[in-house]
Each structure stands twice: as C-alpha cells, then as structure tokens.
C-alpha cells in the first residue's frame, strides 16, 4: 500500500511540474521583485524572456529603460523594446510607443505615427489611449481637429474611470465643445475626477459652485473643492481660495478645513 501511495504522489508531482510553464514562473518571479523595487532581479528574469520574444517582458523592459530602473535611462532602448511588443499587438506597448512619438523621446517627433499607434490601442479598449487620441483630435495634432470625435473618445475613457478624461469631458460639456453645453454633465464628470484627487477637476468643480453654474451657488462646497486643489499647488485655486475664505467667514472656513483634512482620494485605476 505504501509503495502505491508514494508512486501516486510522485506521478502527481511530475504532472504538476510539467503543467507549469517555466516561462510563466520566471515572469512572475520578476514581477514580484519589481513590486519590491528589486529592479536588478526583475531584469534578470525579464531580459531572457524578452530576448525570446515574450511581449510582456519586452514591454516591461521598455518601462525600465524609460524610467532608469535597474538600468541607465535610455529612451531609444525603451522605444526599441516597446516597438517589439507593439508589433505583437500589445496595447500598453502601442500606447507608450505612441507617446514617445508625441514627445520625440527616443524617436523623432511624429504626431501621425502616434495617431496610428493610439488608434490601435484605443480600439482594443485601453482607456489612456482613448484619452490620448481624444487629445490629438481636440488639439488637431497629427490629424484634423474634430471636437465631436474628441468628445466621444473622452467619454469612452471617462466611462472606464480615467481621471484626466473625466476632467476633459467636463470641460467640453462646460464649454459646449464637441457636444451641447450641459453644466449638469460638466459637474458630474468634474466631480468623478475630483473625487479621484485630480487637482484641475477639483478647481473646476469649485468654480462651478462659486458661480452657481450647473448647481445652486454654494460657497462652502466651492471652498472645499478649491482648497483641495490649492493644497496640490494649483495656483488659480490658491487665488480663488482667498476670495472664498472672505465670503464664507471663519466658522464655515473651520468646518470646511476639517472636511479637507478628512478627504481621501478614491483611486479608480
């Protein structure tokens, strides 16, 4: 009986080992090291995988070269690795490669190529690429400006929780660009972004309440959001805060300050 049990156990172990791809085990080890900030160990796991054509490893290597983690920062090398992964269809790599083209980091600046790569990543549903492509349409870089397309792309990214897209969508509703002016929608999207801690949205939301645009005027609410933006160094908000402090008076100011201290940004991503 003992013989039979040992053989079964041995068989089970062998099967278990065969079923675990060595590649996945190495990548995961690298990932754990990376999360700990042990970039040399992450590199040791990922470089061989990248050389073998593993897109995820190639992409992460690109990030390490871009940021100078475990290696000297080298934008050109970052781009090389991202391109390899991008050509295999990896959306994050396509996104980062596109942004390298926009900034002219490691490659000559090329808004048209950026547009092409962003379109592919946006199609795959990557929120940041939907946002970045929307920005190109909004500002007319690398393609003809098209506010309606920008709006549609921001809406997709905002719906996925991307704070910058939510803020920019709020601005379009505020200003009636790319869609009908809708101050209630502006407030809705500014608020979602503001709750995530995005300073520009906090400032914009504060201004809506200060002016009674899209909601009844509420100086205390205005002071709350404006103070949050000001505490992040937003200079317009710092100025507006001074005006609002005069308006609300000391007791309300003290209450708002307590709310500001208690505020915790919700991070969607």
């Amino acid at each position, binding site marked *: 009986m003992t013989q039979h049990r040992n053989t079964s156990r041995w068989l089970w172990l062998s099967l278990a080992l065969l079923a675990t791809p060595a590649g996945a085990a190495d990548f995961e080890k690298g990932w754990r090291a990376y999360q700990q900030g042990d970039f040399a160990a992450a590199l040791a796991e990922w470089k061989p995988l990248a050389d073998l054509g593993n897109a995820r490893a190639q992409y992460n290597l690109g990030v390490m070269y871009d940021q100078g*983690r475990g290696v000297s920062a080298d934008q050109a090398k970052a781009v090389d690795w991202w391109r390899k992964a991008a050509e295999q269809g990896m959306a994050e790599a396509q996104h980062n490669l596109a942004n390298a083209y926009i900034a002219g980091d490691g490659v000559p600046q090329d808004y048209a190529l950026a547009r092409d790569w962003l379109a592919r990543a946006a199609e795959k549903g990557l929120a940041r690429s939907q946002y970045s492509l929307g920005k190109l349409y909004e500002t007319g870089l690398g393609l003809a400006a098209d506010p309606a397309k920008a709006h549609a792309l921001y809406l997709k990214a905002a719906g996925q929780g991307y704070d910058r897209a939510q803020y920019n969508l709020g601005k379009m509703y505020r200003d009636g660009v790319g869609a009908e002016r809708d101050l209630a929608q502006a407030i809705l999207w500014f608020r979602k972004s503001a709750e995530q801690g995005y300073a520009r949205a906090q400032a914009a939301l504060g201004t809506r309440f200060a002016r009674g645009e899209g909601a009844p005027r509420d100086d205390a609410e205005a002071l709350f959001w404006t103070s949050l933006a000001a505490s992040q160094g937003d200079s317009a908000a710092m100025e507006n805060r001074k005006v609002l402090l005069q308006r609300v008076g000391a007791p309300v100011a003290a209450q708002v300050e307590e709310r500001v201290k208690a505020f915790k940004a919700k991070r969607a991503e």
Partner: protein
Amino acid sequence: MLSRRVVLAGPPAVVVSGYAQAQATSPDGAAQFVMTLAQQALATLAQPGLSLEHREGVFRDLLRQGFDLDFIGRFVAGRYYREMTPDQQADYQRLFGDFVLRTYAGRLGGYSGEKFAVVAARPAGQQDVLVQSRIERPSGPPIGAEWRVRSISGAFKIIDVAVEGVSMAVTQRAEFDAVLARGGPESLLAALRARTTKMPATARSG
C-alpha cells in the same frame, strides 16, 4: 556663514510642522526639512500590500508639498509663460509638476536596499541653502543630489535639484525653450502630457 558638515541619519529630533517660521539662511533648518520630507515620502514607498504604482503615486503626492512647483514652472517656461492663456497656464503647472516629480523623485531612492542620507548643507546666495544628499545602493556607486532650498512665505520649499552637478531647472528651461520656440505652448503641453500618461509595467498578459 561658514560651511558645516551636517550628517543626519535616523529620525530627526524635531517634527517638521515646527518649521513654519523658518529662517531664510538656516542650513540646519533646510537640511532637517529635506531629511524629514525624504523620510516621510520614503516611508510611503515601503508600505506593504500596495502596488508599486500606487505607492509611487502617494510618494509623489507627498513630495509635491515640499517643492515650489509654481515657482520652478514659471522659471522654466521663461517669457513664454505670460503668452499662455489662463487654461494653458493651469494645465502647464499641473503637467509640469507631474513631470518633475516623476523624473526627479527617483533621486530619493527608496527602492530595495537603497538608503538616503543628508550629508551637508551650505548657504548659496542671499536666500538659499544647498542640501547635499546621497543614496547608497547595493548595486552600484552612490548617487549624489543637491537640493536648493529657499524659505518662501515662511515655509521651506525646494526650488531646484542638481544631479551630479546638473541643475534640473536650468536643463528643463533650455529644453522647453527649444520646444516653445518651435511649436508654441500646445506642443509643449502635448509633450508633457505624453511623458506623464505612459502606462506602467504590467503583469497582465495580452
């Protein structure tokens, strides 16, 4: 004022909130400020259980308090700042701040096995103190950085950082000047956006 070697390792004796009325030319005060800011920020990087991406976001948020990004941003954009619309100025300030913190926060280290230490502080000019720091790393030679600290409205603020002798503010000003001269504010904003909205490393496949 004479130069002094100020070595700070381990927790400071005085809590940072006591530095509201900082002297403009106090090397010890400035050194203490940098050490405390670094320790508080680095503690956020060491938090277990959160992703590196999340920890780095909190790290940057903390550092943000210690820099006068408005001051640095205006210096770096030079005369082009006045030519921007208010919306462009506000966007620029936000994006510039993100960019500076992402690029230069790494000078504090905080990653596996790295140790940050303040090694010296000396006055510079009428208003500033240069605080010298060093990151000891297991994997290579130490990295030196110099933090220019000024008392602004009664609080210490970092207004520049030099790595291996190269000033961040001067470098960025030269780079931004070229971009602004060539393509105006929108091209600079596009470049800063591109640099600060890249995706981080991932474990997701496909």
